[in-house]
């Protein structure tokens, strides 16, 4: 097991390296020298040269790449073209919105999806089992922004329970308002995410119900519920964990849209603004950090899956 973790760690580091290369290439492939974006079109050659020197884009590509890797290693993501502020500072502030949003939404989605998914599988023949599957279908198909608007209409404009958007100026120093402003966005993402998670859980549980080892366990005298909990949960968990890596990145996407609907100052709105303003350092920074986070999640998910699934554990040892 330790060997696997070490091997997986090496892969993680390699992945990060490749991701950095891909990003470097991608952003250099975008049309135009970033120096032009910095000074704008009517600039004099002297101004462009100065901007190039500032950005280092006058150096050979190899040197640029090494400098870029060095900067990354020191977590120096450069300066925004537009605000002139260090990119990493803005990302840190905005992560304090997006990370809690993503994790709270994912946690809530798990709490909803796992029990309901198992129930939908076990009671598949009953009307409420069927109803649960239908509900999960609805959840998957509902557009995120539509759901957001609907929730705002009901809980902010009609019932006046929660704010319709925005985030307090002082952030978590104003805990009551910070939490309040997160509730609707979290619920919005969680509903959509739990719907797709529930399907995975239900499918996995159905598979377990039809599997040999459950039959064996029952033949050995375990009660169905007991057997299901002992063996089924574990198999369900494997499924959930295996989709975790994918789900977390779609959650981040959901966050981009949801941050727009609720005017939240998170990474998503930073990326969107960066793209609109051609603010390359900001776009690059957000992509690097979000890629890093997703890769890290994938790493943890793989290890957890290895721990949980005996079949995968045996396969190579």
């Amino acid at each position, binding site marked *: 097991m330790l060997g696997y973790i070490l*091997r997986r760690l090496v*892969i*993680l580091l*390699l*992945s990060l390296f*490749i*991701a950095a290369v*891909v990003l470097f290439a*991608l952003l250099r492939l*975008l*049309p135009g020298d970033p120096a032009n974006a910095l000074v704008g079109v009517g600039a004099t050659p002297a101004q462009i040269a100065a901007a190039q020197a500032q950005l280092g884009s006058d150096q050979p590509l190899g040197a640029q790449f090494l400098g870029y890797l060095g900067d990354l290693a020191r977590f120096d993501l450069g300066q925004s073209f537009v605000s002139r502020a260090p990119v990493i500072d803005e990302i840190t502030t905005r992560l304090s919105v997006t990370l809690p949003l993503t994790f709270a939404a994912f946690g809530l989605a798990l709490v909803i999806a796992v029990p309901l998914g198992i129930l939908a599988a076990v009671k*598949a*023949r009953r009307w409420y089992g*069927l109803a649960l599957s239908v509900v999960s*279908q*609805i959840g*998957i*198909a*509902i*557009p*995120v*922004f*539509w759901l957001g*608007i609907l929730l705002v209409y009901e809980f902010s404009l009609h019932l006046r329970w929660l704010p319709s958007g925005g985030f307090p100026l002082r952030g978590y120093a104003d805990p009551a308002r910070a939490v309040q402003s997160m509730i609707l966005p979290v619920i919005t993402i969680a509903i959509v995410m739990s719907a*797709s998670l529930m*399907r995975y859980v239900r*499918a996995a549980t*159905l598979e*377990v*119900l*039809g*599997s040999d080892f*459950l*039959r064996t366990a029952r033949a050995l005298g375990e009660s*169905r519920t007991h057997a299901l909990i002992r063996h089924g949960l574990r198999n369900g968990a494997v499924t959930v964990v*295996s989709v975790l*890596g*994918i789900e977390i*990145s*779609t959650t*981040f*996407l959901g966050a*981009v*849209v949801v941050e*727009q609907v609720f005017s939240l100052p998170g990474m998503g709105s930073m*990326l*969107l603004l960066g*793209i*609109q303003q051609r603010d390359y350092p900001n*776009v690059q920074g957000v*992509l690097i950090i*979000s*890629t890093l986070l*997703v*890769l890290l999640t*994938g790493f943890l998910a793989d290890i957890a899956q290895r721990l949980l699934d005996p*079949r*995968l554990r045996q*396969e*190579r040892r």
Partner: protein
Amino acid sequence: MDDGVNIAARVGSRKNITLWLGAVLVGVPLLAGLVSFVWTPYALSDMVGGRLETPGWAHWAGTDRLGRDILTQLMVGARVALVVGCGAVAIGAAIGVMCGILAAFATRFADDALAAFFDILIAFPTLLIAMLVVATRQEASLGTAILALGIGLAPIVGRITRILTKQVLGQDYIVAARVCGTSWPAIVLWHIVPNILPFLGVNLALQFGLAVMAEASLSYLGLGAPPPNASWGQMLQEAQGTVYSAPWGAVLPGLALFALVIGVNLLADGLRDRVSSQRGEA
């Protein structure tokens, strides 16, 4: 009496309803999209009515701010949605399934490398890739959006294919087949593909939904293909400002999007249950 196979079989028979419901929900936009090639109530961008007319006889689904017929836009939007969904899934599946199976069969090193590569690509999420491509192209079009979405979907499909394939490869009968000297293309064709197809099919349906939804989200964020390429997402974006005074402009395209995605998922579910119950009985 109470074992899983029987449950699956019985759920399957009941699921005929879902199959039919799914077929209807997909069939309506499919039909509307096809009909829109030859006939729509009005021309797509003709300003034939007043500002924000409520649904009525002349305009069954009302009109938008410019007085354009919403039903016409919905029909053309159905065509766009189907093209986007099918195009993106076809591109994604073509690349993803091939790479996924290859990875599962490859040497440990190549497998790890490919798996890691899928993870890296997934870490650049679909929507972001699409955003970058569409946002930086001067001549953005629906084609670029589809290509971007398809490439974005490929690693997700690849990752799932690889996991599914490995699970099948670990089964006893595959080991037996290998011992018997069955060639690996035969194993892929006779054992892997039929076994992963139901789960993969459901997954592709989900990806179809994801692609259609992603295109709508892109348009909603103002990063979609330029007008007059009427897509449901673009209709939603344009109706944003009038969502409280003329809700039908936002509700109807949203509903259409919702129905299509749910329809595809139900259809896939129903088909999978039918397949697995047939195999269970055989």
